[in-house]
């Protein structure tokens, strides 16, 4: 299993890192949006919350969008078809994808944080950074699994528009661009059920030194399980149709 996982990880990381055209924009994009829209939100608690929001947004963009879409595109490729004739379970392949997503998310989030230090006066205790890192890690699992779930039902062509259709509203509804208090009540009512709102609430709690609420943790766990179940259901070894 570990040998298999390291083989999958080696292959996945080689393919991704040897494509600067893929990873440079993927890592830069959230930081760029943060620089334009997040870093000028004043100082103090606001600055820390905005930074946390864009860190979560970076997680969503990389995990859900990039990795979800790539699953759909891979699924249609003859190489992936050949891969599924090989012995061994498909699980290490998914784990390798999630690890790769974590690596890219770390780079993207680190860039947001670096910009926050350059452009604002954020100053947080070590514990708050640790909790933000934990939130990002949990969110990566959820976002990547959701992306994989979407990627495993959408066709290669439909994946990009479909991912946009889900991920942009999710970022907005989660309060990652506009804080929830600025939302109309009706939107806020929907927002409270989204995985991104749960991620945001956990991140803001970390910034403000509040305890995490069980409700937010539970909501995130529920979305994670749902995404994992959907991925499991749609990627059984024998598909009804060959993907070639």
């Amino acid at each position, binding site marked *: 299993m570990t*040998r*298999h996982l390291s*083989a*999958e990880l*080696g*292959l996945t990381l*080689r*393919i991704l890192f*040897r*494509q600067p055209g893929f990873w440079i924009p993927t890592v830069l994009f959230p930081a760029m949006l943060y620089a334009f829209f997040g870093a000028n939100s004043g100082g103090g608690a606001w600055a820390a919350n905005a930074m946390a929001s864009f860190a979560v947004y970076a997680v969503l963009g990389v995990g859900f969008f990039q990795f979800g879409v790539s699953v759909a595109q891979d699924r249609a*490729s*003859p*190489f992936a*078809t*050949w891969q*599924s*004739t*090989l*012995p*061994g*379970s498909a699980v290490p392949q998914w784990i390798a994808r999630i690890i790769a997503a974590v690596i890219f998310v770390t780079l993207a989030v680190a860039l947001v944080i670096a910009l926050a230090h350059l452009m604002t006066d954020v100053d947080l205790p070590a514990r708050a950074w640790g909790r933000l890192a934990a939130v990002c890690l949990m969110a990566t699992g959820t976002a990547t699994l959701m992306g994989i779930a979407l990627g495993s039902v959408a066709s290669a062509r439909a994946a990009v528009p479909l991912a946009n259709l889900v991920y942009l509203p999710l970022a907005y509804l989660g309060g990652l661009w506009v804080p929830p208090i600025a939302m109309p009540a009706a939107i806020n009512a929907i927002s409270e059920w989204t995985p991104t709102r749960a991620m945001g609430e956990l991140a803001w709690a970390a910034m403000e030194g509040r305890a995490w609420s069980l409700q937010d943790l539970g909501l995130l766990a529920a979305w994670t399980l749902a995404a994992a179940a959907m991925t499991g259901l749609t990627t059984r*070894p*024998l*598909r*009804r*149709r*060959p*993907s*070639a």
Partner: protein
Amino acid sequence: MTMTQSDLAIHAHGLAKRFGAVQAVSRIDLVVAPGEALGLLGSNGAGKSTTLSMLMGLCAPDAGKALVFGHPVGSPAARRLTGATPQATDLPDQVTPREILTYAALRYGVAPAIDRLTADFGLDDLIDRRVAGFSGGQMRRVALALAFVGQPRLVFLDEPTSGLDSAAQQAFRVMARSYVAQGGALVLTSHHWDEIEAICSSIAVIDRGETVLAGRIDTIRDRARITRLGFDLPPGLVPPLWLGARHDGARWQVETGDSDTLLRRMVTEALPFANLTLQPLELKDLIHHLRHEENRP
């Protein structure tokens, strides 16, 4: 000695597969023993690749059952024993053949025999080059090597030599024959009759999703020792109807399972033929002849 199901490399019967309105495969039966090479023949869209997809466990049949060395197709045990080159090949641009071969070997749990595969498939200049920019034939060579890297006992090759130059085709034939001679089972599709004849001991002809003719090539030859007679006639003269000859644009030709009787009658009836040639039918024409015969009312 009779073979049990787990001795057979493939034991498939009644396979069927429909895609929407298209009945891609309607009834396929196949049996392949170790040390046997089976050639799947049939026109474009006949259902060869769909059959292979089902045997590789890539798509579930709607009906029928297939076992690989006694294991259900697509099961971990079946996949461990099987290698494959699908009809379409594309490898990720960013990796080298050595990296992909090593990866595949690891999934099979064997040591990658890079040097042997490099020699067998002519990868010397390619093995450490990134795949981006490989020509069609270069890509094909890597894809073929990948089918064998896991030391499989059964290999599926869908149009293995499409895009290969003639030297590479020749090398592939040698390699395939030695794999089979060492007890490997091979199933390949091809549109090249000479390739099938050079590698395969058996064939299955698929037409519109059904096996219409199957068996050992030598048995098929024995079953129908068909000879093709060619001859010229003086201009304007047409051969008698009983002869059943046709003109191919250059000469008169007739196919027969009993050339002696036919020739005797041609002589007795004093047909003024000239430049008589007799040759055994090539496999391609033989099969055409047999199917034509069977379809006659």
